[in-house]
């Protein structure tokens, strides 16, 4: 089996007496979509925060592209190629969709300490940004400010930013949240193709999307991974049925 892109081993995180992350190990292999599911409060967001670098784990290791990234902050991890989207869209609201993506392009180029050339006339920023917007189907809305975009469009913009970063792995935190059925369907198709570019760790509540997309699924309950396996294995796992799927019928 290929070397995992992202390899998480024995991760622990407690808030007081609450074990939000309890000895979690999981990995993300090239070309796959690994879905992370679990009921509300299972610790999915806490786990994502630790992987992205916005929260320090209590113990355990996170390796990305063979490198221990546990001590790195958010910007460093992004520069290594870990592209995340937020559960609640996090954008520069005054900036147009285009400028939001252009910011990612300049960050990728590592050129934020250039003081003279005007960004809006800079094709080396605009062209890749427009291309990313086009890929997520947002090109027509390029000049609308992020604050005026619809909820679903903001979700798309988040993904366009992750694309423009040239991420080597995607960390998508509920990309479908709040999207209509049309949008979810389109995004499912898009993510299906995206895995060839870089593997995706997908946190998602939309079970149709998860079952359609995931190569593997890990189920998180009370901070613990109770099962990891293919869609079929997870569907038939009695623990999972009881802890999670059973509740939804």
């Amino acid at each position, binding site marked *: 089996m290929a070397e995992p892109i992202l390899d998480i081993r024995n991760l622990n995180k407690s808030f007081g007496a609450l074990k939000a992350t309890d000895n979690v190990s999981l990995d993300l292999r090239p070309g796959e979509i690994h879905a992370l599911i679990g009921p509300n409060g299972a610790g999915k967001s806490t786990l994502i925060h630790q992987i*992205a670098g*916005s929260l320090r784990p209590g113990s355990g290791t996170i390796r990305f592209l063979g490198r221990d990234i546990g001590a790195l*902050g*958010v*910007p*460093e991890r*992004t*520069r290594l190629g870990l592209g*995340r989207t*937020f559960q609640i869209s*996090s*954008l*520069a*609201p*005054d*900036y*147009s969709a*285009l*400028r*939001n993506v*252009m*910011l*990612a392009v*300049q*960050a*990728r180029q590592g*050129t*934020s*300490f*250039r*003081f*003279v*050339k*005007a*960004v*809006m006339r*800079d094709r080396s*920023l605009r062209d890749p940004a427009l291309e990313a917007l086009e890929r997520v189907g947002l090109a027509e809305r390029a000049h609308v*400010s992020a604050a005026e975009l619809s909820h679903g469009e903001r979700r798309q913009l988040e993904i366009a*930013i992750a694309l423009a*970063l040239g991420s080597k792995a995607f960390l998508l935190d509920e990309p479908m949240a709040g999207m209509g059925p049309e949008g979810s369907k389109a995004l499912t198709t898009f993510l299906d193709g995206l895995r060839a570019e870089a593997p995706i760790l997908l946190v998602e509540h939309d079970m149709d999307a998860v079952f359609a997309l995931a190569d593997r699924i890990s189920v998180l309950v009370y901070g613990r991974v109770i099962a990891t396996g293919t869609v079929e294995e997870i569907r038939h796992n009695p623990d999972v049925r009881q802890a999670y799927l059973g509740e939804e019928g």
Partner: protein
Amino acid sequence: MMGNPRETILNLALVLLLAAIPLVATGMGEPFYVTLATRMAILALAAVGLNFLLGLGGLVSFGHAAFFGIGGYVAGIAATHAFNAEPLLFGLPGTNQMIVIWLAAVLLCGLAALAIGVISLRTSGVYFIMITLAFAQMIYYFAISWPAYGGEDGLSIYVRNGFPGVNTLNGLHFFYLCFGLLLAALAVFSVLRNSRFGAALEASRQNQQRLAAVGIAPFRVKLVAFAISGMITGLAGALFADLNRFVSPSMLSWHMSGELIVLIILGGTGRLFGPVAGAMVYVLFEFYLGGVTERWQFFLGLILLGVVLFARGGVVGLIAGKARHG
């Protein structure tokens, strides 16, 4: 930014108006108005510096008097040593050349801003406001208790410092020198705002989490902005000392920091010409209302209240509409 014709027209009008006041005043034989216009230009320049940090970066520094005052003391101390023909530092002489003084003021303020910024930028919100205030007050009390340069009484500049090819003793000439620097600072502000650095700085105001998530560390961006901001305000301080031929700890006091913030809010936070509009309005109020009543600041307060409640964009926002970000 591009594409707001009304703002462009307003900006041009402000430039022409400010440039014309001293000419008209001189024609009418009213040199006092030349001084008034110079005061507008210098305060505007100081506020351009703060506007860079506050308007673009969203960082409310309540300690920019530190840089304004340091700039002023550089001019005062250099001139005093030149006047008395005493060596200043390491055997270096004082100077009455503005160019040297400006460079020294900008350099020193840049270093001071880096030092203050490294510590204060670790905080945010109210804490940032308070810690920048604290640093400025430290420097204020240091100036008060430093008898070598006048302490509480301040320091006089007996002859205004010189500039090659310009008779700085002539109020009109000195005005155009300050005016030229103001225009240059506005050009720098505009270029920086439109650059990649400006994009990162504006993004840090709008959403730091997003900036970090695309891989740009907000701290470095803000620190560089803090230094640039302090340098511009420091330059204005050097000019202000030369305008008054006097520098005192009051240039370092928190009132001064507050005044700069008020200017920006009056004129339009984050707008290129906000500081210019703000400084013109402020100095006019100070003069005309100050002539009517000693309690003019009460009325200024009312006006400020009105601006904050009903015209968040200040003068520029009121006339030119909302800012556009491309």
